[in-house]
Structure formats: C-alpha cells, structure tokens
C-alpha cells in the first residue's frame, strides 16, 4: 500500500495543451462558400454569423479560411447582397 497523498501532491486534472487550430475541420465540407468580391459591400454579417471563425477581415476585403470552414452555408444564406455562392467541392 502506498501512502495517501496530500492535496498538494495530487496531479492536476486533465489540461488540454494544444490549440484546436491544429485540427483542420475544413475536410468536413461538401459545399464551399466563394465570395464575389465585386458584389461584397463589406457589411461583415458573414463574419458575425460564421460559427467556425472562418471569415477573415483584414481591413480591406473579406476572405474565407478554408482550413476550418465546414460549409454550413449560413454566410451565403444571410448575405444581404447575395455575394456568397456555395460551390460543390471536387
């Protein structure tokens, strides 16, 4: 029998130590959003609604980070000027 440990010696609970950005969820996608830059009015509604933080705003134009985009199509559906088209991957 080993000796009982005091609370200071107990191991700390599980600690996730890698960022999930290492895990690319882009391969879940069937349809990919394509932004028509000439139509985009830069309202950033797509950025607000995107559940996967995959819409990138650099201060000048809106682009998609296909590493994480799961292709849900919320951005295309909510775009007020229909500047986003869902195109089948392949």
């Amino acid at each position: 029998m080993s000796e009982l440990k005091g609370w200071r010696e107990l191991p700390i609970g599980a600690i996730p130590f890698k960022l999930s950005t290492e895990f690319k969820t882009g391969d879940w996608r069937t349809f990919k959003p394509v932004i028509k830059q000439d139509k985009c009015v830069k309202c950033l509604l797509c950025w607000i609604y995107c559940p996967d933080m995959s819409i990138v705003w650099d201060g000048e134009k809106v682009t998609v980070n296909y590493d994480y985009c799961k292709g849900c199509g919320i951005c295309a559906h909510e775009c007020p000027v229909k500047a986003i088209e869902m195109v089948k991957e392949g």
Partner: protein
Amino acid sequence: MSFTFNIKELAKQPPKLLPGHRLCAGCSVPTIVKLILLAAEGPTIVATATGCLEVATTIFPYTSWNVPWIHNAFENVAATASGIEAAIKAMKRRGAFKYERVNIIAFAGDGGTYDIGIQALSGAIERGHDFLYVLYDNEAYMNTGIQRSGGTPLGAATTTSPAGKVIPGKMQHKKPIADIVVAHRAPYVATATPAHWADLMRKTKKALSIRGPKFLHVLAPCCRGWRFDMHLTMEIAKLAVDTCYFPLWEYEKGEWRLTDRSLVIAKNPKLKKPIEEFLKVQGRFKHLFKPENRHIIKELQEYVDMVWEDLLKRAGIK
C-alpha cells in the same frame, strides 16, 4: 445606457474562441460564444458545464479557448463560478491579484440549467456572486443524441419523447426558466438570440457592467436536433422572435423592457407571425401538421399568445 460596436475594428482581433472546434456545421453555439466574448472587454474567466460546447471545444489534447477556462461536472457550473469569484476575493485580500475586476462567465446548456444545474444556479444567485450565467438553449440534450429536457417545447419529437401512435411528441410545455431567475430578484435577466447579434452583444455588455448575478437566456437553434437544413440556423432564430415564441426582453431592477425586434412587434402587432411559420421549417414538429395532431399547434399558439400578452403587460405596453 447605450453601447455601440465597431465590427470592422473588432473583427481584426484574434478570436477568443478558436476555430478547429468540433461543433456541428451550422451550430449556433460558437456564434453565441464568439459574440459574448467579443462584447466582454478586459480579463475574462470562463467556466463551462458539460454539454455540446464543452465536449466539442476541448477534445483532448486540443482546446479552442483563448481565455482562461475551466470545466466541471454537469450540475455545478454556477457553483464553480461562485468559487472563482470567492477565490479572487481571497487573493485580493492577500494582495496576490492584480486586476481590479474580472468578468466571470458561466456557459451551460439547457440540460445543465433547466434540469441538472438549477440547484447550483439558484444557490449562486441567492448568495449574490458577481458573475454572468449564459444559458444556450438548444431545447434538448443534443450532445448525447436529442433527449427531451425541461427546455423542450410542447409537441417536439425527441428520442425520449418520440412522436408516434402513443404520444405526439413531448407532452409538456417549456419551463419558464428566465422567469424563475427573475423570481430570485437577480439584478439583470435578459433573453437573446445569435441572429439579433447587436442586441446580444449590448445585453452582454450591460450585464457585465452590473455587479451581482446576471442571467442571459440565449436561444440556440440546433440543425441536428431540430431537423432543419444547416444554413437556416439564423433564419430560424429570427422566426422564433417573429412568431413571439421566443420574445427578446430584459429585466432590470424590477422593470421589464422589450428590445430589438420584439419591441417593433409590440408597437406594430401586424408583424407577429403565426406559430406555424416557426414549426413548419423544423422536422421535429412535422407530425403536428397531421390532422389528428393539429390541436397541439392550436394549444402551442394559445400558450405563446398568453406568454406574449403577459409580457406586454409587464413591459407596460398594454
């Protein structure tokens, strides 16, 4: 108090909830968390009860949280948040804590709030801890495969209230959880949806500016559990407000106020849509449109109208 947001500036910041999380495509929960953490300025600590959000954002060894984060059991996120606040107080007394104020935010789903976590929540509000409790309500235990919860509405089909010959989906109404919190005389209680994003962010900012326990009830449409196409998530949240199924309001110091779209509907009742508009786009309610189940739609409509009329009276509009 009014708050304005410059999205074009905020969008340049690194996100506090990182991509690469494994919530379903079309899930509304990451949008809710993203917007709330965007509105929370200054140091923030997040505690999360077991639920979709917790299991999908921290699959070992990965974490999606770009803020200090702690997980606990299903039932005690409010107690954990209380403990964080008490620990900060104790560290301040010893001069071992450098921040003046820290935002403590607890996230829990409807299972972790309506059913399993209500005792811890009630206790934490009664003790008056300074924290914000966010309930993301997807109206069933979605993480384990769509079992009914106290938040599931009347008539919804789930795996433990399946629609068939014996029962037409869940037999009971949704528990009025926000009213239960208001009954605790919490300083600030509000409802929100991710589709009405400015309203959600404003309410978060306002809540965090108030000391004491705050409660935010956010509707979280779930494409897998509610059975709709994943691109419709925000559309359905808008329909929930337009049909007055989920009115947007806030309660502060004994006063009720309707906000955003619900205020518009209150001033122009013609904009209120029938509950069918909200039901017909979701597979979990499709059996209600059979002739033998039509009476449930009528019952739901009467219930929604009753709650809405009551809210108008409380807000002093009628």
